[in-house]
């Protein structure tokens, strides 16, 4: 398979240091799937399931337990609805979702965990979708979810912006770098 513009960074080994090497190797060992409407539906349904878990995390019986971030539910619901429309627009069917939030010690922590999963799903879809509009949508959703995650981390007393490359749960950045 020839090097293509689609895999610019992984192929060039950009970043190079530390985990960047592993990321480059991982990418080079994987066959690249060309964007298609069918692939769009697959990726967006994964994101829909993850974002549905975010929405359910914000729809707890006593929303006061979420403190000042209880208003986040509206954004989560909006994303679920837009993902459903995008899936239908790609000719697919939105998968049935009955996602429960992750088990955690508090509703806020459960919401944070769900957001990390959703970010990981959007990260997997970013650039792999077949239209600029869909790629723009998942970038918008990553920004929204990353912002909510930062706010939740603040409520939990955690570092709100710990990493320069936000990928979601257990996802190494595509490009890892050390400052020049």
């Amino acid at each position, binding site marked *: 398979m020839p090097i293509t513009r*689609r895999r*610019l*960074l992984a192929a060039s080994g950009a970043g190079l240091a530390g985990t960047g090497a592993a990321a480059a190797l991982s990418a080079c060992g994987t066959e690249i799937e060309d964007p298609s409407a069918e692939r769009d539906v697959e990726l967006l349904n994964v994101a829909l399931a993850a974002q549905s878990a975010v929405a359910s995390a914000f729809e707890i019986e006593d929303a006061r337990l979420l403190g000042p971030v209880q208003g986040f539910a509206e954004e989560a619901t909006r994303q679920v609805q837009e993902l459903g429309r995008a899936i239908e627009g790609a000719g697919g069917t939105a998968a049935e979702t009955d996602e429960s939030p992750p088990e955690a010690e508090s509703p806020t922590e459960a919401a944070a965990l769900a957001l990390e999963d959703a970010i990981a799903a959007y990260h997997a879809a*970013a650039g792999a979708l077949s239209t600029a509009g869909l790629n723009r*949508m998942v970038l918008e959703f990553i920004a929204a979810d990353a912002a*909510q995650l930062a706010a939740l981390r603040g409520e939990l007393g955690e570092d709100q912006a710990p990493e320069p490359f936000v990928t979601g749960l257990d996802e190494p*950045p595509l490009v890892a770098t050390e400052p020049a």
Partner: protein
Amino acid sequence: MSEPTTRREALRLAGLGVGAAATPALLLPALARAQSSDDDDLNDFLEPAIELEQATAVAYETAAEAKGIDGELKRTFERFQEQEQAHATALRSALDSLGFDLPDELSDPAESDHLDGIDNLKSENDYLAFLVDLEQEQVRYYASDAPPLDSEDLIRTSAEILGCQAQHVVVLREAQGAAPAVAAAIRLGEGAQESQP
């Protein structure tokens, strides 16, 4: 070790040594792709992104060193400066691998239009407002200019950087006194249906 049979294989093997001891500067000539006119759109995206990242890094550095900025806020500015520099370094590597000339490194705020007025900032609130504007400019740039590219890697890396910038906005807005729900309200568009080509 046998000779690599394809360019892809050669690059993969080159990557093997990266984590051990080699430096980017030594590897880049071997990894460079032939520049083509089709790469111009990537250059058109990367160059302004690098300039914006470098300017934001310098802005954080300036803010961290400003009189009256100390404690937790100073440490936050220092860490965000490092993160912005990491973005710039990654994007510079990508541009270099395409064979384009790299923008000059930025150290003097006067050399960047993005930093007009930074010398006039006086208070903590002045710096926070200035940095929020810069971060929001970055958020808009990555969200609007990356998607039309056909480089899956660049879009995905833009997503990673965009997430970081969005989190910076939240931290800065909260430092300005905004409630978390207000600080985290980041809307960039009206969704995919209206923006699809």
